[in-house]
């Protein structure tokens, strides 16, 4: 068990190191988040709709797009010089490769979200500080849910034609349930409703996360084995 996590961390560390040295993906993703938030700002009529009513959807649409960008690149990295074959030849289990990719993707998406939330609070004048802890919880639960499925799917789509287009087509139906719950929970939080109101959605998010982490972990070998 300890070996699994050590190997997984190695894989994740490798991905993050590659990213940290070039910083192209994270920078473009961050700029992308800023641009989407700006576009939304001009896409609404501030006199008709209060910022706080629109804010949860804006936040989650932004995160959805950013996450898809990040996920597309997760296995793209391994295509150059057949790096994936090297990874598969390494004496580590397929499960730890998946966990490593998942961890790297989660850290990547979390970084984008950490940049996105303060900007979102700034641009839309939403008070996030008083609800920072529960909001972080909602974001974490939903992010784990769709990054889990997304990592699995990106391992498949990367070897198909139209990989960049196919991933969102496959992934969006799976992203919708956690997104709906996350948007509803975020709306309640930003409206300063008590935590007990979002408990049900948090439980659904947790159930979704557990189911898909287990499923993806078991199914990943089928996507890479020859």
């Amino acid at each position: 068990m300890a070996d699994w996590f050590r190997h997984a961390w190695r894989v994740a560390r490798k991905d993050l190191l590659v990213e940290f040295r070039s910083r192209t993906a994270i920078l473009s993703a961050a700029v992308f988040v800023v641009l989407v938030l700006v576009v939304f700002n001009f896409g609404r009529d501030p006199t008709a709709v209060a910022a706080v009513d629109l804010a949860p959807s804006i936040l989650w649409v932004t995160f959805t797009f950013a996450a898809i960008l990040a996920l597309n690149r997760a296995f793209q990295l391994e295509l150059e010089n057949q790096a994936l074959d090297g990874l598969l030849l390494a004496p580590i289990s397929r499960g730890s490769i998946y966990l490593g990719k998942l961890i790297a993707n989660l850290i990547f998406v979390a970084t984008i979200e950490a940049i996105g939330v303060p900007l979102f609070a700034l641009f839309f004048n939403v008070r996030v500080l008083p609800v920072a802890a529960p909001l972080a919880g909602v974001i974490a639960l939903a992010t784990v849910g769709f990054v889990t499925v997304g990592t699995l799917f990106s391992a498949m789509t990367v070897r198909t034609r139209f990989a960049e287009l196919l991933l969102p087509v496959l992934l969006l139906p799976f992203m919708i349930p956690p997104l709906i719950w996350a948007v509803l929970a975020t709306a309640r939080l930003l409206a300063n409703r008590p935590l007990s109101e979002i408990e049900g959605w948090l439980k659904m998010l947790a159930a979704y996360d557990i189911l898909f982490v287990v499923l993806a972990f078991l199914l990943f070998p089928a996507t890479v084995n020859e």
Partner: protein
Amino acid sequence: MRMLRVGRWITGIGLVLLAAVYVRALAFTPVERFQGPAQKIFYVHVPAAWCAMLAMGLVGVAGILYLLLKDPRFDRFGEASAEVGTAFSMVMLTTGPIWAKPIWGTWWTWDARLTLTLFLFLLFIGYLVLRGAVTEPGLRARYSAVLGICGLGLLPFIHLSVYLFRTLHPQPIVLKPSAPSLPGPMLVTLLMSFGVFTLLYVGFVVQRYAFSYLREQLEAAGGDVGHA
């Protein structure tokens, strides 16, 4: 080929029975008190939704069996079931708005049940697009199995959505924990309709399966096959 003939027979019997069920639904089943004749579409919409869900579930089960046994028959079945499921979910998504316009006053509403069934349809499309994007048969079978199993995992969330959110969509009246709450004659018609739709599903899938099989045989023999 025998299988193709069997499939044609099942579909033929299914279509005859379908006509019989419509006669029964239109002429011999009482008209619903509040919704009037609009409610009759219920005998098409609900069984079609049932078949779409069944199709997705079986695509998932076929995926699990394929990954365990590596038998190409399960992959062929998954493909057949997904295509037939796409057709049934289109029936569901077309009949729904036709009913909703007179009853709700709107064709479509972004209610949880509607949204998620729309995504069930998109899931089928995604499955078929994925199959089209992978050319190598072994890889295609494994990828589709993985996607099918994930789809199966998504089904309970779709079915639960009606219980979890306040929704405009009518609550399930047959597949629910307590006894069915539908008057006798309507329930009989609905159950008959369920039976006929399931029979049609079987007929279509058997035919589609036979086509894939013949196509593979032809390709193996070096024949040129057009795009299906």
